[in-house]
């Protein structure tokens, strides 16, 4: 497993080698599967490994190359998908017992686009049940371990996808971000995680947690890889009414354009809410941008702190409705009862884990007659205030800078006793979901324990291009040892 393996040379190098016939997808997929095989006993990134399917996809790619055809921009690139994206014929569980054996009869739009881009789906990754959580500890099938330190969580909810990239299984993977579920695990695993503008990527086939907040995005070892992966899935989809009707952006080409003259605002309101290492990383990132030609300034946006409480009303409210369909009638788990109502209640009690049940109850309460205005109505007002605050900040700044997470990777069990402790993990990421704006987490430092720390670049709607240029500059300025992959899990006694 040498660093010079094609698998570690990035998406562009892989696709180019496959397209020219210099390397074979069939070989590459075997290497990826071998790494998965070696690492999974300890890490548990995957809910399902789709080895046979990946091999067949690899053969198809090699055959296409043999016929002189172009298999696509992700030709032969092994990838991993969060297990809340519908894959035709492959079990899709949301890491929930209620969907433990559910096999979708259709591919989500993102999945279909990735297949037609020539990507090889190696497997479906572990998540917090229905994407509710920040550590993968809410998975009904056991947590994923952080490749940097297996006594620690990888973050969540897309922890399986971030860890799969950090472990070097695949160069890129895909997750969903409702309150930070891509950026937070990216930060904790030392990889890049992009949450696009709401509507940039189709949600068709993404199993809904909170529909107005959910957005699919990409993970990559590098900004360039995550960007290419994002390009492959972006663009209008007539199957998603909230999809933005604009052509897919071309971003990779402008990644190297630098930050000269860009106005950057460092959101100071988060700095005293996060661990010193995380605050320090953001400040250092601002300095790095300044020395690359950007104009950096601190800015206070107090509305950012309204995000967390508003989110924990809106997201559960939508979830309570989105998850109603798991009633035992049509698919998934069914626990029989004397009548339909009892069957329904027993199925849901047995099928949903404690955190999902908690959020369904919170959301149901928040939408109930007599409480709606006080909870859901107020939360929507807070959401509007957050959006306005961003809008006025973007009159002065091209991008904003913030910590991604309040802390680096934490230990298993550290935040499971009090749900609020876990909820606070999303403090810095939630505002972008409420506003629908894009944001990216880039590995930028190591903490005193040698754990990676990410910083977050936030941009206005459809501002992915400038956002990723900034991310690329930060990546270049960051110490090389703060990012994955960590080839071969480190010992849990590390640091």
């Amino acid at each position: 497993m040498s660093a010079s393996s094609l698998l570690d040379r990035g998406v562009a190098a892989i696709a180019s080698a496959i397209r020219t016939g210099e390397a074979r997808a069939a070989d590459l997929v075997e290497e990826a599967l071998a790494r998965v095989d070696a690492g999974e006993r300890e890490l548990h990134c995957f809910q399902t490994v789709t080895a046979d399917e990946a091999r067949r996809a690899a053969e198809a790619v090699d055959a296409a190359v043999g016929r002189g055809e172009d298999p696509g921009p992700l030709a032969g690139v092994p990838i991993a998908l969060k297990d809340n994206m519908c894959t035709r014929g492959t079990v899709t569980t949301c890491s929930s017992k209620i969907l433990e054996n559910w096999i979708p009869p259709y591919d989500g739009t993102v999945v279909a686009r990735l297949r037609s881009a020539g990507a090889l789906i190696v497997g479906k990754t572990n998540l917090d049940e229905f994407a509710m959580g920040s550590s993968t500890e809410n998975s009904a099938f056991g947590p994923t371990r952080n490749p940097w330190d297996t006594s620690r969580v990888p973050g969540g909810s897309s922890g399986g996808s971030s860890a799969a990239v950090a472990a070097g299984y695949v160069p890129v993977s895909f997750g969903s971000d409702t309150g930070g579920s891509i950026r937070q695990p990216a930060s904790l695993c030392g990889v890049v995680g992009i949450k696009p503008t709401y509507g940039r990527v189709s949600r068709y086939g993404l199993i809904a947690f909170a529909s107005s907040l959910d957005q699919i995005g990409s993970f990559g070892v590098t900004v360039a890889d995550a960007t290419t992966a994002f390009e492959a899935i972006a663009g209008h989809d007539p199957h998603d009414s909230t999809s933005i009707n604009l052509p897919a952006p071309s971003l990779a080409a402008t990644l190297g354009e630098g930050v000269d003259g860009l106005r950057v605002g460092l959101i100071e309101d988060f700095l005293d809410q996060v661990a010193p290492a995380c605050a320090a990383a953001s400040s250092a990132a601002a300095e790095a941008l300044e020395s690359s030609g950007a104009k950096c300034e601190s800015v206070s946006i107090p509305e950012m702190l309204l995000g967390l409480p508003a989110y924990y009303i809106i997201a559960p409210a939508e979830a309570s409705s989105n998850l109603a369909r798991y009633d035992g009638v049509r698919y998934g788990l069914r626990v029989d009862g004397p009548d339909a109502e009892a069957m329904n209640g027993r199925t849901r009690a047995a099928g949903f884990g404690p955190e999902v049940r908690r959020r369904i109850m919170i959301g149901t309460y928040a939408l109930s007659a007599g409480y709606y205005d006080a909870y859901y109505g107020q939360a929507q007002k807070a959401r509007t205030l957050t959006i306005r605050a961003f809008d006025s900040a973007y009159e002065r700044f091209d991008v904003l800078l913030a910590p991604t997470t309040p802390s680096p990777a934490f230990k298993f069990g550290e935040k499971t006793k009090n749900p609020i402790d876990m909820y606070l993990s999303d403090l810095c990421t939630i505002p972008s979901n409420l506003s629908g704006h894009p944001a990216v987490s880039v590995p930028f430092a190591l903490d005193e324990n040698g754990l990676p720390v990410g910083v977050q670049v936030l941009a206005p709607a459809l501002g992915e291009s400038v956002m990723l240029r900034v991310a690329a500059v930060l990546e270049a300025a960051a110490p090389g040892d703060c990012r994955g992959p960590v080839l071969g899990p480190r010992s849990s006694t590390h640091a």
Partner: protein
Amino acid sequence: MPDRATPGYETVVGLEVHCELSTRTKLFCGCANEFGAEPNTNICPVCLGLPGSLPVLNEKAVEFAMRIGEALHCEILPSIFHRKNYFYPDMPKDYQVSQYDEPINVGGHLELPDGTVVGIVRAHMEEDTGKTTHVGGGGRIHEAEQSLVDYNRAGVPLVEIVSAPDIRSAEQARAYVSELRGILVATRASDGRMEEGSLRVDANISVRPAGSSDYGTRCEVKNLNSLRSLGRAIDYEARRQVELLESGEAVRQETRHWDESASVTHMLRSKEEAYDYRYFPEPDLVPLVPENELRRRASAGIGVLPAERRSHLVSVLGGRDHAAPVMDQVQTVLELSLDGLVASAVHAGADPKHALNRAANELAAQGEKAATLAPESFAALLSLEASGALSATQAKAVLAELVSSGGEPSVVARKLGFEQLADDELSSVIDAVIAGHPEEWERYADGDKKVAGFLMGEVMKATRGRANGKVVAQAFTARLG
């Protein structure tokens, strides 16, 4: 006006009419919207509510909803969809996508044939549910041994038309639904078939002392599958409520079920047991802001509405003040779309009343097929009858033949043997009948009118029905001279 069935009280009714739109596909997916298909064949991930699926609004359904709004004189507004949350096995997502406080059509009215104006509060869009068949235990979900669900209907577009509580009797309620049905058919937005469930009615019924302007406590009555059920349920429910009040009890607000076979309503759930639907804006859909082009297309798609056809027909019939029986005939003619036939016959010289009679009675008896009769055939037939060339009996027989097989009225009449008798031939037949029955003729001459029928019958027998009764009667009178 106090109701006859409930003296001293006034019945107050508001109706909620659900109508299925005649779109080719469902409201949020491309599945066929068709009645009577094999169960669970018109389904896909979207209308089955499979995890990850998302709705996309059918523009044609929006256009149809706008047609209905315009035909009901509503204001057509930008609107949004909400989720109405409740658990039921025939609802694939366990929420129904519907419009709540920002519906597409608000504030219209509908004028009944008798001139009563019924307010339309709103006419909003929503998706239909699947259809459940409970097996065993009397067909209700709680006692059923098993339930079978057909999701073909899930996601079929509906418009729910909510009237103001402006209806005052069972008869008016029936007239409202019947007029509304005519409007829906005219807009081509719905086929309005109650028997196939594409038109479904719930009634909010209350009573109050005659003369009071406050509303009484209402009950919502469901399962009204025909105009007949609607009328009977309103009468029953009004009587029930009056009896409660008369015995000193209060009416409790509740949802009740009309049991057609027992002819009673019984309680489904009380106000306290009513669902909390937890409405909130549907995040998977964007606000609906109809563009001018869509508004234009919706307007252009509306056919001639019943009210306009009615006033045209009334003016064809020569005026405004017609007696109720005539207005009933007018209604029959309108419902079967025979008004064009009547108008063109009158235009060609037919007597309006004659044309209306033949259309409302003989043509109407032929059902939906009657409307296929060629206008010139109808006019020609009426003219043959008016001239005495055909008797009334003959004309009716020819009319039936024209509807079932078509053709020229005179040709059909000949084919049926209704050829006009020459005057001298008729005359000699009459002479022969008189000569053959001298006793009867004497009694007739003495004023026994009963025997006239016998003599007429003899003439008809001798002419094999070809004689015109009116002409024969005139000939009898002349011979008494």
